[in-house]
């Protein structure tokens, strides 16, 4: 499956909410979609394109905005597909993928606590790796390592 095929299949349902499909070596492409089209994108990728296996959900903090990406796999074409959406840094939230892929549950919990991206309608958005009540999001760029005084504050505030 080529990026063009993916774009053709997705554009019917998404229209202009599909921002483009880039080439990505080793995968079927990198789909960029608008955050408000999340659930539609997931459904069409899962049902129409047949990517039934969600491998990974991750977030990247680009300081001015945040990016959330999904890696999905299809057993039919035996290829990966990467979905990616940009979210504003001050209101980083996107629809949860758990209704489509059950496996998104833990990945989204992890992304939420590490990169501070909220997943709406997630069934169980609790801390996974960090202790309960931990208020920081370590994978944000503003969370600096190698600053012991700050670290002390962070530990105390937990």
């Amino acid at each position, binding site marked *: 499956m080529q990026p063009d095929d993916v774009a053709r299949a997705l554009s019917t349902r998404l229209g202009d909410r599909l921002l483009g499909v880039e080439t*990505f*070596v*080793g*995968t079927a492409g*990198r789909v960029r979609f608008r955050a408000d089209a999340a659930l539609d994108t997931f459904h069409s990728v899962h049902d129409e394109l047949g990517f*039934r*296996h*969600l*491998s*990974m959900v*991750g977030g*990247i*903090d680009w300081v001015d905005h945040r990016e959330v*990406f999904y*890696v999905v*796999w299809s*057993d039919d074409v*035996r*290829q*990966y597909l*990467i979905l990616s959406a940009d979210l504003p840094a001050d209101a980083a939230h996107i629809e949860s993928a758990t209704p489509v*892929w*059950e*496996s998104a*549950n*833990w*990945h989204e919990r992890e992304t939420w606590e*590490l990169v501070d991206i909220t997943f709406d309608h997630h069934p169980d958005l609790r*801390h*996974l*790796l*960090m*202790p309960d009540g931990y208020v920081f999001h*370590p*994978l944000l760029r503003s*969370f600096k*390592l*190698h600053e012991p005084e700050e670290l002390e504050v962070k530990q105390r505030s937990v």
Partner: protein
Amino acid sequence: MSEMWLNMGPQHPMTHGLWNLRVKIDGEMILDCDPEMGYLHRGIEKISEDRHYNEVITLMDRCCYVAGLAWEHLYILAAEQALHVTPPERADYIRAMCDEFQRIASHLMWYAAFVQDLGLMSPFLYGMRDRDLVLDLFQSFTGARMTYEYQRVGGVRSDLPAGFTDRARKVLDWLDERYVEYDRLCLGSTIFRERCDDLGKLTARDCIATGVTGPMLRSAGLKRDLRKDRPYSIYKQLDFDVAVADAADVTARYLVRMEEMRQSSRMLRQILDWLDHHPGPVLADRLPRWLGAPYAPQGREGYLLKRNYPKGLGFSSVEEPHGEAQAYVVNEGGEHPYRVKFRSPVFANISAARHYLVGYHVADIPPIMGSVDVCVGEVDR
């Protein structure tokens, strides 16, 4: 007895690591479960952002302490894609050899822990003993037994020592005899079959829904192996079969892993033959300086940015002993990776715990979780 929540972990012989399995039980029946992770969270993804590309390798060995070389390979593949570097062919073969030996070592470790959970004491020692031979091999060319730090962006650290392939073949011969013995000790025993048959069922449909990969998925009859489906490295050149079983229970997982070890032996013989006849460089020679060397020179701040090193994204997926591991590396032109994200197969396998634990007995938890092959280091990262 009324219902109660039982904390199995974080310090519990069943956990094989540091995590907490909370189970709700009624008498001996499991009604619900809730795995709690994070006791071993070291922030490897965060630390990686503060190290440059080769220094991340030291973290990869600690990511999964039973499959360090496979994780190094995973990271290196993604980093090379992000940095636009191609390794020499011999390095690729050596890496594949590391992968397969690591698979054998990891599966032996799994075997040892799994039978120990069942109360079988001596096979535990046999598994550890035979794994040590593989570690000896690793030690002879990487210099360490567990934290190898062997692969580099653009190749591997050093070539194999003289006589390595012969020693490796000897180990493979020894192991081939042992697999038979392992089967006799486990499959030959009625008690083992009574305990493991029809236990921890996870159908192929549930596997896909919950993202379960690796031997667990293949034990459900689904033939998916990245080495075949998406041949990275040099796996296209190798002749091997994918081990599949269809019972989807603990015995099936045992069978799949045993068969995988045999297939790994088969692959390794091919790789060793190739290595015998194709000497060559093991590190790409036209590398930017600090990618080839393991260190950055002083005054490195902004070094790559000044030189307009091309940006890039790297994504790799490797059939690790536990399943499909993935890495996503963002190169923003700096000397450190901007973001490194790993997908651990065990992470997904544990998250599906509710599907394969509920409805069984408390006494079944150790064999079921043993058949999942938990490695907490890579779950928590």
